């Protein structure tokens, strides 16, 4: 999606650097929502489930998790 939006932005800027299509901004807004969801999921992995933290890794190796 980032690559598609970058391409879209490149074409729009090539046509008129002073105007940004409203549809582009809308698509950017959708991407912001998706990124926020991704950040929330990543936050849960680290801060709730302790992914890659020393105590959880040690407990996993000891067969406790």
């Amino acid at each position, binding site marked *: 999606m980032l690559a598609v939006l970058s391409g879209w932005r490149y074409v729009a800027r090539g046509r008129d650097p002073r105007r940004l299509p409203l549809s582009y901004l809308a698509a950017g807004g959708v991407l912001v929502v998706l990124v926020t969801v991704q950040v929330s999921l990543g936050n849960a992995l680290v*801060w709730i489930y302790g992914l890659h933290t020393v105590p959880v890794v040690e407990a996993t190796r000891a067969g406790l998790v």
Partner: protein
Amino acid sequence: MDTLPSPPLINPLIEQLAPRLGANHLPYAVPIHPTLVHFTIGLFVIAITFDLAAAFYPLERRVFRFLALPVTRAGLHDVGWYNLLACAVVSFLTVAAGFFEMLLADPLPGVVSDLGLGSAATQLWHGVGGVVLLLVIVLMTVWRGFQRFRWRRDMGRQVQWLYLLAGLALFPVFGLHGTLGAELAAEFGVHITADQLLAAGADLREALP
């Protein structure tokens, strides 16, 4: 088997607020500071990088023309300035969240980090370092503002070489500072639900959703 008495809570804040705190010792599910910190770092790095790109603009002009990109030197400097300004603003929130969460921190006892520091030393370096870095960011922003609006207003290159060098020199400082913060999480288990539950002797298969 004898059960040892659990050690008394060292942190009186956690003791007082205990009924309102989760297993991660926070009144909410995940800490805020580690998310905000990425805005501070990202905005600062982008700010310096775009000012560097603007400083070397005469070398890049042909590439931009070849790619049919309507890039102006002033435009690159605008990106540098506004990103640094946003960095300075958001970093106050980063430090505020960091201090709130440091007051409620309960690092795992007896751990020594990869850098050879205990939890107290790591917390103190990261806490004091964070305030110093906030001050440095604000000073860099003021310096950048003077260059933009006073000293170099009519020049093509809006920033001094010394400013760019200072910005680049801060990258490894941010890296080291961030490492201390990452160790507080990954090694000392600060505000990590799973780590705190493990330390309390809970079975993660049952205690975690």
